[in-house]
Every structure is written in structure tokens, then in C-alpha cells.
């Protein structure tokens, strides 16, 4: 993909103790509000809102969570005047990068001025079974056409290995009143993701026409400390380039990559000319990589 779509703002609703559970819509709205403030944009300027979270409040499957988030953010909620399309895009932990790829394509058509991507996880189910559900969190990014065409997203790559699809599942059992969240994570999951990491990075770099040497920083989903320790050899990049916030940021599924991006930006502002590699891993099994030029 040609460059030219950049991240104009980032917002986060960080995991951590809160006296009251807030739910996935509230988390996405909080992150979205901070994102719009960070970008200095009004809600009415958002033409498309894509929500990429996995879990839903009360397990509501219709309408799209994005509609509730649009309402919460006050983005062109009526049918008069400026218009916004909201929809959900689902692909587990890779959803936000999928949405960034889709939105980059839509922005390049020239009919949109700005698009917002949100993701949030907020498990409202206190009786969840199986693997421990991820903590509540929210993340949002605002994408726009960049005034400098050489900046912004470069190459995207997505690899799916369907033969391992059953290794990661999140299901709502409807056999029980109010539904019950069942989460399954196979113990060998991280090993499979590490196998997929190298090829997906190769593909993203090839699409952008750059080499590993041009990558200044790698921002991966914060799967676990052990996973992040094994990631550098798997992708052929030195460990000091890989952002590891696993001590303070747990794995938060769909929001993980951009919460790490937010943390990285807070800790060491990335200067113009720097290139980062974003890496996400999700069910499917899917590995996603994207290059981004500041």
C-alpha cells in the first residue's frame, strides 16, 4: 500500500483497578474521547467509525457495538447534516490492524476526511468459564490523510493458519440464562504465533519495500513477558528494539497493540523519520504486521 494515511490521534483507557466495572462500550467511548482530544478534532469530523473489540456488554450481538460508541461519542448521531457510518470489524487480537488497513483504503478514495478506530474489552460476565478473560481496556486511533505523503502506514500483512483455529476461541454459551462467556486458549498458542511472526514481518516489509535494518522500533501486542522475550529471534530483530511493557500492561486482546503504541509514545516520543513495526496476534490463528513511518 502507498503511504499517506497517518495516525492523527491516539486514546487509551488503560486496564487497572476501578471501583466499578465499566463495560466495553464505556471503555471505547473513553478512549475515543481522549483520541479526538489528542488529535484536536471534533466528533462531527469522523466519517467512519470501526469498532474492533471482541467482547460485548451483556453479549449484545445486534446492533453493531460501533453504533453505541458513535452515540456515546456524539458523532453525527442524527440523520441530518454530516454523516457517519459505524460498523464492527472482528478478527480477534488483530482487529485493530485489520481496521487500520480497511480505513486506510477508504481514506485513500478521498470521500472521507477522518476515520476513527476503537477497540475495547469489557467482560460483563462475572461467571466466565475457561481461561481468564482479559481485563477491561479501551484503545482508539484517529486516521487521516497525511499532509506528508511519505509518512503514515506503509505495508500491511496478514497471515492466517486456519488449521490451528481451535487453539483460541471465545464463545458465549446460550444454554444458560444471560449467556456465559467461555474462553479457550491452548497452551501451545504462543509457539504457533511465534512460528507465524517471521513470515508475516517479511511480507509487511516486502510490501513497504524496506528492510529490517530500517526498522527503529517494534511495537507488538503484549501477549506475555515470555512471549516478548522469544519474539526478537523469531522476527530477526534485536531485543532492544522490541517494546516490552508486559510488566505494567497485561494482554488486553484487541486493544493490546495500540495501548503499547500509546505507552511508547508517552515514554519516548518517536521523531519524524523513524519507522516502527506494529505486530498483532489473534485467533484464527492470525498474525498481522504493519509498518508505520513517522
Amino acid at each position, binding site marked *: *500500500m502507498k503511504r499517506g494515511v497517518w495516525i492523527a490521534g491516539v486514546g487509551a483507557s488503560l486496564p487497572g483497578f476501578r471501583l466499578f466495572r465499566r463495560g466495553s462500550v464505556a471503555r471505547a467511548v473513553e478512549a475515543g474521547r481522549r483520541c479526538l482530544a489528542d488529535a484536536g478534532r471534533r466528533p462531527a469530523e469522523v466519517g467512519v*467509525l470501526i469498532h474492533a473489540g*471482541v*467482547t*460485548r456488554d*451483556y*453479549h*449484545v*450481538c*445486534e*446492533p*453493531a457495538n*460501533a*453504533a*453505541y460508541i*458513535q*452515540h456515546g461519542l456524539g*458523532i453525527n*448521531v*442524527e*440523520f441530518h447534516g454530516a*454523516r*457517519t*457510518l*459505524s*460498523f*464492527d*470489524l*472482528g*478478527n*480477534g487480537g488483530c*482487529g485493530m490492524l*485489520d481496521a487500520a*488497513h*480497511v480505513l486506510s*483504503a*477508504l481514506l*485513500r*478514495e478521498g470521500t472521507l476526511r477522518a476515520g476513527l478506530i476503537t477497540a475495547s474489552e469489557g467482560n460483563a460476565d462475572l461467571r466466565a468459564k475457561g481461561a481468564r478473560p482479559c481485563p477491561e481496556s479501551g484503545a482508539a486511533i484517529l486516521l487521516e490523510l497525511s499532509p506528508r505523503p511519505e509518512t503514515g502506514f506503509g505495508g500491511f500483512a*496478514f497471515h*492466517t493458519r*486456519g*488449521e490451528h*483455529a481451535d487453539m*483460541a*476461541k*471465545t*464463545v*458465549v*454459551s*446460550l*444454554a444458560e*440464562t*444471560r*449467556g456465559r462467556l467461555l474462553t479457550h486458549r491452548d497452551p501451545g498458542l504462543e509457539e504457533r504465533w511465534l512460528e507465524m511472526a517471521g513470515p508475516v514481518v517479511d511480507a509487511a516489509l516486502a510490501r513497504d519495500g524496506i528492510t529490517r535494518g530500517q526498522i527503529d522500533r517494534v511495537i507488538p501486542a503484549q501477549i506475555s513477558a515470555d512471549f516478548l522475550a522469544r519474539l526478537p529471534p523469531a522476527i530477526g530483530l534485536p531485543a532492544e528494539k522490541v517494546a516490552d511493557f508486559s510488566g505494567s500492561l497485561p494482554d488486553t486482546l484487541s486493544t493490546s497493540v495500540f495501548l503499547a503504541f500509546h505507552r511508547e509514545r508517552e515514554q519516548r516520543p518517536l521523531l519524524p523519520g523513524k519507522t516502527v513495526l506494529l505486530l498483532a496476534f*489473534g*485467533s*484464527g*490463528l*492470525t498474525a498481522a504486521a504493519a509498518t508505520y513511518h513517522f
Partner: protein
Amino acid sequence: MKIRIESLGAYLPEKVLTMEELLASCRRRPPWDLERITGIRERRVAVGEYAVDLAVQAARRALALSRYRASDLDVVVCASISKHHREDEFHYEPATAGRVAREIGAGSARVFDVVNACAGMLTGIYVLQGLIRAGEARCGMVVSGEHNMPLARTATRELRHRFDGQMAALTLGDGGAAIIIDASPDPSSGFHQLDLVTGARHDHYCYSRPSRRGPGGILITKARSFQITGNKHFPAYFKEILDRSGWTLDDLDHIIPHQVSARAVANGVKAVARYYGCLLPPCTRVSADLYANTTTTSHFLALHRFILDGTVASGDNVLLVSGASGIVIAHATYTFDDLPERYRGHWASGGAA
């Protein structure tokens, strides 16, 4: 660059359930004559098949008619709402599109799900249009399988009174649809305009979630308010998309609305007629009488029916109209290439049976 529907696949389960049979199975039978009110006589019901199976069947049929092989597909987008892939299970992840891609042999395709209530397939087309125009994909599939009858079964158990919010669940049916999209080689055919808008202030009129009174999922619809609000706003978008396409009402050969019910469609036609101040040409096609409301798949199951019976022909101008919970208002203007002829020929030769 315009995109077109290169191939179409539809799958309807064999079992037929009439409205009378469904009403007879209600623990407290509603006093309404729902068949007369909705115009729905019967629907198809999946037995031993789930949403993903319906989607896979439709996808295989679309591939059978297509010049593309499964391995040629760059993207597979699944737009199902009812991700019931096993008995009493609703799947958040992995993406249903991945499972469909694996089953049809499109293992190298990019996969993700798009969820936008009943406008899901039109939203999937909008997304794929963006990827094709940006050069990120050459061709792709938008597929959906809707296994809605578990919601209707919950309604038969839980309906309490004549104004119960679950009443609309009795208008649902099962079905699968798939389309293969690529760039149109002929600028006079394909999608001329695709317009989707969400009026999120109205997000409370229709929602689906697990029941709080027992097992199963429920669909709650404030049908009257939903229709009144939708009919107040959608005619302006209807006119706008015709204007942007350079069409007038007389250019329309077919209007294919979202098949909620025959009465809802008739009310929508009246709303547009009021807005225009004249009658609409009698080209609104309704398939709800036989298939009921199959949510995301309804436009494409209607196309399947009206292409096979010869109503829709090559070169015809079609307007697809959708009103979905959110509220999402979606319109698409489309001119057919030779797909209707190919589709009829394919079915006549038994290729899709």
C-alpha cells in the same frame, strides 16, 4: 473504478416451516394474524446445520458459478449476525470468515468479519470496494449465513402478551448468501453508488442478546417506532442516491428492500411516494412471503428468487435498500451485467443444486 457482483450463491435449507406451524408452537399463541399482517407465509429452517454451514454452502455455490477459484480470492468477509456455529453457542472469535475460507479452500485469503446488523452484507461490499479501489485486493467474497430460528424458538417459549418485544422474532428465517466481487470491466454496469449512514441516536429500537429468563438468545424490536423513524428519514437518502447515480424513478427496473415483512416494505414504499409526491413504479420486489426475514442475506436471496423466475434480467437497474438496527440506512444502485443469464443457465443445468 466500479465494482460488480461477479458471482452469486444462495443457499436455502430444505425444511419449510409455515407461519401457522410456528404460531402453533408458541406457549402463549399471539392473538394476531401474523401471516396477514406480515405477508410471511413460510420460511426455511436449518436442521443440523448452523450459521457457518449455511455460509459455506452459499460460498461454494458462488464459486461454482464464478470464473475465480477459491485460491484466487484475496479477501473473504463474513457478515453474519447470528454466529451460532454449534448448538446453543454464539462465537465471538475466531472470525467466521476464517472458517468459511478454510472450508472452501481459500486458505491464503485475508479474512475478517464485518458486523452491521441487517446491513452487514452491504457494509461488506463497501469495505471490499475500498480495498479493490485502493489496489489492496483484486477480488473477494462477501458471505453470510444466518441461523436465526433459535431466536424465534426462544420467542415461542417466552412471548407473554400481544405487544411483547419478541414478536418480531417470529418473522425470521434461515438462509445463506455469498457474492464474489471484482472490478467491473464495463463502466456501464456494476455498483454506481453505495451509501451507508448510521443514525446512532436511534440505536435502541432493535437489539439481540441472551435471554434473562432462560436459555437461548432473544431479539427485541420496537417495530412500530423503528418503522416510523426509518420511514421519516430514509426517503431523503433514497432520492439522493438516485440523483447521484443520474437516475430518476423511471430508470429503476427493480427496488429490492430489506425483506423485514411485506407490510414494512409497503409502508416504506408509501413513505417514498409521499416524499416524491407521486407513486413509485410497481417494481418493488418482495420475497419475505417465502423466505421471511433472513437478516443480512435477504437482498441476495431475493435476487436469487427473482433472477431464477426471470423477473430480473441482464442490464436491469436495481436499487438495494436496507434499514438495519443502529439505525443504519443503506442504499446501493446497481446495473447488472450478464450475471442473471449466467445464473439462470447455471441453475437450469443443475450446477447449483
